[in-house]
Every structure is written in structure tokens, then in C-alpha cells.
């Protein structure tokens, strides 16, 4: 490492400004208060909203971890200064373990396959997979794999800051391709287990890919948002310029379009075949005011980010990137809500004041996790062998 940047702010662990910490605590308090009132009025609704929060936070963490494995797998240079941001955000995976508690406790109320109607041949046929013991075993397996991957990549990278040994980078670049495949498989089955099985008679073979792409777009969006904020507040080296952010913007643009591609592929096949047992799932998302939410998703999760990031200069424009990445995060949250809520409750309005606690809770969990993870090491991987060349990256 060059001696010029040793004593700068990004070489020290992050300490959260008091204002932000205060805001985080406030958001957390508001979320708990609103959640308490919401659960008191409608227990099932609060339960399904908790599932949305769990999946939202988890997908952010998994997407960030995916971005880290991607860097090691393709030996990318530009992303090295942002890798610590993604590593810190991957701590949302262990954090989401706590958020999974409502799902585990309310599994009987959320999932129809827990108590199938007598004579239901379809659920009887699926009972070898959809049963509580196996469900819990898979939950444990998925989280074991993810937490092991997180500790291996993120904690190893933090240790490299102090040790300065390049051996870790070699190990990580061998571990990442294998772990990436594991991530794809586990995310696919997690999507089947936790979201698709909410409507156990329905199935879509592309559903795992849908959640995988959602994870990736969420991971890139949250990494971009945090990195842009850090850059604007002066936490990142001056050498990091628009050229570095261009790649984050391009990934965000590409993955957001990939999400639209997969989502449309799933819709087109079901719409064209027009079979009752397949269209039922979309019918739930067209009735009771959910049709407007579906249109909002097309507009917010595809058209707006697509147009906002289409221009080349937009991807190097930090102000543009800041609002677009936040926008995509919100759209991703809406997407997760759209995937889960209509499957659990059939009637009622899509949104009421009972959902108000979700954004507060997401902000509070995000800030708390960031405060915990970022305080443990510097904001860039100080002893990464590629750091020097990545700081001088040109488009």
C-alpha cells in the first residue's frame, strides 16, 4: 500500500455519526411501536409483513455476498474499493436470522401445506418435501452455507487488512466460484420453500431464477447506494471517480433489465398457456387492487430505472446514481411484498397503515447492521493486492 493514504479516514474503522445513529434508533423505535399496534389489530397481516421484511433484508445480504463472489470469480479490478462495502452489507445475512423468527413461529398460519385439506392429492404428493421437519432442516442448511460463506469471504478479507498476506486473495478466488454455485442452488430452493410454497398448489420452474436475479439487483443497488453516500461524505479515497461508479451503474442497469426479462418470461408463459392452475397465482395479483400494484412494479422496477440509467453519463453521475439505487431498493421491496402478501391474505386493500412499520424496520435493521459490521475494519480492503491498480482504474 502506498504510504499516502495510510492515515486517511477510510483506513480507520467506520464510526457512525451521532445524527445517523439517532435516526436509526428512532426508526427502530417507530417500527416496534407500529408493529405492536399492527399485530394487535391483525395478527396474520403482521406475520406476512414480517416475512416480507425477512426476505427483503436477506436478499440484500445475499446479493451483496454474490457481488463479492463475482469479483473474485471474474478477477475484477474496478470493484476492489467497493468490496468492503459489499462485505459489510453481507452481514445482513446473519442479521436476517433474527428476522426469520416470525416465519418459523408462525409457519402453521402462513403455509397451507402445514394442514392440507383431507383428500388433497396434490399436497399429499408434495408432502415428502413440504413437511415441517424437512423444512427446518433445509432452513438450517441454507443459513449454515450462507453464514460460512460470509465468514470465509468477509471476515477473511478483514483479517487480510491486518495480516497483509496475499494468500487470502488466492484462497478466496478459488472458493468463490464454488460458493457461487452453492448460492444459486440454495437461493433457488429458499425461494421455493419460503415464498413459492405460500401457494402450494402453484409452481413455476423459473421462480428460483426470479429470486436470484432479485437478490443480485438488490445487492448491487444497496452497494451502490451506500458507496455513493460514502463517497459524497468523503469516506472513500479521492482516486475513486465516476469511472469506478460507472461499473456499478452498468451492473445495476443490466441486472434491473435482467429482472424484467425473467419476470416477463414467467408471466408470458403462464399468460399464453392460460391454464387455470397456473394463472391462479397471477389472478391473485390482479384482483382487489393488486392490479395497480402490479403495474406500479412494471413502472418502478423496470421503466423508470431503465430510462434513468440508459445514458452513459448517467452511470457516472453520483447524484443520479444515489436516487436511482434508492429507487431500485424501494422497487425491490415492493417486489418482495408483491410476491408474498397476496399469497397469504386474499381480501382487503394491498396497503394500509399496518404496513407503515416496514420501511422504518428496514432502515433500522440496515443501519444497525452497517454500524456493527463497518466498525470492525477499514472501509476499503487495505491490503488487497489489486487495490493499487484498481484505484487507477480508467474506463
Amino acid at each position, binding site marked *: 500500500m502506498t504510504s499516502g493514504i495510510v492515515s486517511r479516514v477510510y483506513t480507520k474503522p467506520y464510526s457512525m455519526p451521532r445524527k445517523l445513529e439517532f435516526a436509526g434508533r428512532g426508526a427502530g423505535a417507530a417500527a416496534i411501536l407500529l408493529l405492536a399496534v399492527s399485530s394487535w389489530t391483525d395478527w396474520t397481516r403482521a406475520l406476512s409483513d414480517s416475512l416480507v421484511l425477512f426476505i427483503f433484508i436477506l436478499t440484500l445480504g445475499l446479493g451483496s455476498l454474490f457481488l463479492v463472489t463475482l469479483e473474485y470469480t471474474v478477477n475484477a479490478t474496478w470493484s476492489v474499493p467497493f468490496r468492503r462495502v459489499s462485505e459489510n452489507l453481507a452481514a445482513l445475512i446473519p442479521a436476517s436470522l433474527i428476522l426469520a423468527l416470525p416465519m418459523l413461529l408462525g409457519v402453521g398460519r402462513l403455509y397451507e401445506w402445514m394442514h392440507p385439506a383431507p383428500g388433497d392429492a396434490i399436497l399429499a404428493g408434495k408432502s415428502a418435501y413440504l413437511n415441517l421437519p424437512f423444512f427446518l432442516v433445509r432452513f438450517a442448511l441454507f443459513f449454515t452455507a450462507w453464514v460460512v460463506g460470509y465468514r470465509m469471504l468477509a471476515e477473511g478479507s478483514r483479517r487480510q487488512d491486518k495480516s497483509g498476506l496475499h494468500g487470502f486473495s488466492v484462497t478466496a478466488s478459488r472458493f468463490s466460484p464454488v460458493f457461487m454455485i452453492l448460492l444459486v442452488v440454495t437461493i433457488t430452493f429458499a425461494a421455493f420453500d419460503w415464498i413459492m410454497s405460500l401457494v402450494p398448489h402453484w409452481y413455476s420452474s423459473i421462480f428460483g431464477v426470479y429470486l436470484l436475479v432479485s437478490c443480485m439487483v438488490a445487492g448491487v443497488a444497496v452497494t451502490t447506494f451506500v458507496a455513493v453516500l460514502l463517497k459524497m461524505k468523503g469516506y472513500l479515497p479521492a482516486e475513486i471517480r465516476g*469511472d469506478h461508479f460507472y461499473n456499478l451503474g452498468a451492473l445495476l442497469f443490466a441486472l434491473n433489465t435482467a429482472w424484467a426479462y425473467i419476470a*416477463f418470461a414467467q*408471466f*408470458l408463459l403462464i*399468460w*399464453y*398457456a*392460460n391454464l387455470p392452475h397456473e394463472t391462479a397465482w397471477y389472478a391473485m395479483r390482479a384482483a382487489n387492487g393488486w392490479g395497480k400494484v402490479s403495474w406500479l412494479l412494471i413502472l418502478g422496477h423496470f421503466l423508470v430505472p431503465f430510462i434513468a440509467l440508459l*445514458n*452513459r*453519463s448517467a452511470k457516472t453521475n453520483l447524484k443520479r446514481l444515489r436516487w436511482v439505487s434508492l429507487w431500485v431498493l424501494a422497487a425491490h421491496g415492493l417486489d418482495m411484498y408483491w410476491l408474498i402478501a397476496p399469497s397469504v391474505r386474499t381480501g382487503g386493500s394491498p396497503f394500509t397503515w399496518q404496513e407503515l412499520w416496514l420501511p422504518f424496520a428496514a432502515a433500522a435493521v440496515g443501519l444497525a447492521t452497517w454500524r456493527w459490521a463497518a466498525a470492525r475494519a477499514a472501509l476499503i480492503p487495505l491490503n488487497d493486492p489489486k487495490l493499487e491498480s484498481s484505484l487507477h482504474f*480508467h*474506463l
Partner: protein
Amino acid sequence: MADGEQERFEVVGAIAVYGAPEELAEGVLAARAAGFTHLDTVSPYPLHGIDRLLGKGPSRLGYIAAAAGLTATIVAKTAQWWVSAVDYPLNIGGNPLFALPAFVPVTFELMVLFASLTTVIAMLAVFNGLPRYGNALLRSSYIRDLTCNHYALVVGAADKRFSAGTILEDLSGPNVEAVELLRREKPSLYYKERILSVPFLVLVVGVAIFSSTATRFVFRYGGELPLYSFMKHQTRLAAQTPSSSSTGVTRPIEGTVARGFLPYAYKGRPDDAGANLVNTVPVTAATLARGRDRFTVFCQPCHGRLADARGTLTAAFPKAPTLHSRKVREWTDGRVYAVLTEGQNLMPKWEAQISRDDRWIIIHYLRALQRSQHAPEQDLP
């Protein structure tokens, strides 16, 4: 350089050769500071960021690609709408004729095709000025170095600051390894730089003819791939060929009879028919009129208009007997039916020509004729 050479060549620019990309970058900035605007660089590999140093704005190629993509979107949507909803409406699985979601894949593919082809062609034709026969840089004595380990700043002769006399001095600097004027043959003397030159057109047409002929030849004689898949070559059942499946021509199920054609059960046993068959067709004015009509067509030629053996056919034809004999008058309707169906002596069988009901109707009319010639007393008024 001799005077003749001077006349043959014209100066189109000048280059300054550097040994390192950083020196080239400084040279670019110095040249821009000196007021040069028509600048370009040559390097063995792409130099990231050099376009920004040269002061070049973002490429306008993206707008061309966007315009082509939008055009393709409109073309694809309109074409699919016209084909599927207007010109040849096809109901596919009950989906709407203008099935917007189903049109998206074709629209997307066409958009990619239009945009990519237009972008490549526009890049070559509009921005790179191709096709043309050569580049003045290729005549430079430093071109080998520039494709290997040297870097050059190029100033075009169109630049306002450019003057052939002083440019080499202007470009010289501490890091510059060499300077040189770029020349090319004056186009008016030896060739015309045109896109639609005769050799180029001949080449294009020649390649088109050759490749299409070769393709036709290969498909026709060389390979098993048919050029087109004609409808007549599809696998299907030809008419009147036997088939084991239920899709082709099959035998009717055992015991099937056609409408109005009940099988005749007393073949060769006319007396049994006389004893068992009953004429169930009602006697009405309509059936008698029909009977007269059929009788005139089928019976009258031999038996005569009144069934009295005075038929219109004479000469070589055998004389048919009268139907007013006691034997015929005492026959039951079923016995007459047996004769009509199977024929008798020289009389042919009429089963195929006269329908079942018409035979019974003819018998009614025959009874009326018999009664007209042998009326009993109670018929008298």
C-alpha cells in the same frame, strides 16, 4: 522529394511520435493548449481515457442505436398487429388477436437486430468514413512502431492552426521522438474515393451471385437439407389409402347401416317376404303422385302406362307381362316388393335404383291401377 512527387501527393496531416502513453497524454494537452482542435491519437492498444483528454464528447452513436431500436419497435408492433389482428385473424387458445405480451419477444428480437446492424453500419459509414481505399497513416515511416510500442499524436490538415511549413516545429517537444508530415496521393489523379465505385459494386454483386448460386447448388445436389419445406412433403395420410389408425379411411363398425337402407332379409325367399313384409307407407295424395312419377320412370317402359303390358319399348325388347293378372292382383304387397327388390325372370332388380320407400309407394300406385281396371261393385257410386 522531386517536384513530380510534390504534385502527386497532398499533405493531410502530421504526426508526433512518443515512446510512452504518459508522454502522449502530455503532448495531447500541450497541443490543445496551443489551440489545435483536429486531434487524434494512434496507439498499439486502446488507451483508456484518451478520448476525454482529446476533448471529444460522448459518441453520438447511441442516439442512432436508440432511433433504430425505436423504429424496430414500431415496425414489429405494427407488423404483428396487422398480420395477427387485421389481415389473417387467428384465434390462438382464446387469447386476444392483438396479444400484446405475445408480441414482446418478436419486438425485442427485431429491436436488437435493427439497433445492432444500424450501429455497426453507422459506425463504419458515418463515423469512420468507410469504405475507402487506405489511410495516410499507412504510408508513414513510423507505422510499424505505432502498432508495436510507440504512440502518436495526429493533427489533421483541416485544423485552422495547421500550416505545412511550421507544423513540424509546432509539434516538437522534449519527449517527441520524431515528427512527420502525412501525405496521400491526390484522389483526382489516380482514383476516385467513392462508396459506389465500379469495382466495389462489381465485387458486391459478384459475391451475391456467387454465394447464392453456390448455396442453391449445395442445397440442390450436395446435401439432404431441402431448400424449402413444401407443404406437400409433410407426413400425412393420402386419400383412399388404408390406415390402421383412426385418422385415415377406416371400415365402418360391424352392423352399421346407412340411413334409409335397411338390409333386405328375404333374399331368394319371395314367398317368405310375401308372408311377412307389410307396406307401412301411408296412402295419401302426395304418395300416390310420387308413385305415379316413379312408376312412369321405372315401370311404364315395359309394363305400360296402365300396367297392361303395352309398354313403349317394343322390337327386340322382351314383352313384359300385364300386372292385372289374377296372380299379381292376389299377391300381397310384400310379395310384389320381393319382385321389385330382387327382380324376376328377365326383370332386373331395382334395389339399387329405387329407394325402399319409393318401392312401397310404387306398389300403392300399382294397387290403384289394378283397382281402376278391376273395380268391385261397391266402388260404383
